[in-house]
């Protein structure tokens, strides 16, 4: 009589192996969640406004502004050290990589009513 609860022969190694694989998979998922790839966020310069005007991103993410208006726009930070996309004409894009956590307020140098905020986690 062979005990049903004690596998023998070549199947004896299966439970530890399955557990090991599951453990490694779980660790992989966890690691991926902790070091997710940088994302790209789009902001339209349209109707003399930044759309969306508020954006929440993660450190390392890239923000891309694209001008859809017929007049030029910039996205320029208020705080120092200042950065700017420079003047973008219709159809042009500019980008910024958010490397430091915090809140960034920015505006259009040409149209002072255009303002936006990026929250970097």
């Amino acid at each position, binding site marked *: 009589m062979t005990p049903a609860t004690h596998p023998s022969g070549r199947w004896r190694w299966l439970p530890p192996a399955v557990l090991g694989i599951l453990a490694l998979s779980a660790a992989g998922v966890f690691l991926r969640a902790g070091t997710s790839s940088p994302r790209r966020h789009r902001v339209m310069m349209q109707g*003399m406004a930044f759309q969306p005007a508020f954006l929440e991103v993660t450190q390392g993410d890239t923000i891309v502004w694209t001008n859809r208006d*017929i*007049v*030029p726009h910039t996205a320029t930070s208020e705080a120092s050290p200042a950065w700017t996309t420079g003047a973008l*004409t219709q159809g042009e894009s500019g980008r910024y990589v958010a490397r430091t956590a915090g809140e960034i307020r920015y505006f259009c140098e040409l*149209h002072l*009513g255009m303002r936006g905020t990026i929250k970097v986690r």
Partner: protein
Amino acid sequence: MSVLYPRRLPVVLLSAFCATGLAAQSTATDLSDAEVAHVAVTANTIDIELARFAQARATDPAVKQFAATMITDHSAVNGQASALAGKLGITPRDNAVSQSLLTSASQARSALEPLHGRAFDRAYLEREVGYHQAVLEALDGVLIPTTSNAELGQLLREARQAVAAHLEHARHLLASRGRGW
């Protein structure tokens, strides 16, 4: 190729321009889309030329910056208008409204000529508020609703957004300088 139909330009447009002394006509005028395009290009050019004068004459850095923006933006709109006209195969056609605008612009320039310092800065901004307000009313009341060509209409709607932003910018500068200016 799109067809540009003649359109009637009602008195309301002329009234809007009259509000700032930009025109003195009292009768309705028949304008084609090609003539509407000419009015738009003329209105932009007038503001560009006045802004160039203001850049040289103004003393307040914010007023100089505003003038620079007027040059940049109105030049961009005119560039788009020229490109669209080329695409549609039309030449913007001179007309009585454009001529009236030019005459009024010349008078406005003459009024600003003797002014200097803060007096000039204030008068220039006041002129810009009145001018952009009148152009906005003309766009909303007549030019946009009566333009038959879809692409020209779209260009005017996009230009309207810039004109509205310019108006708010000029108003903000005037208000921020206060009555003591």
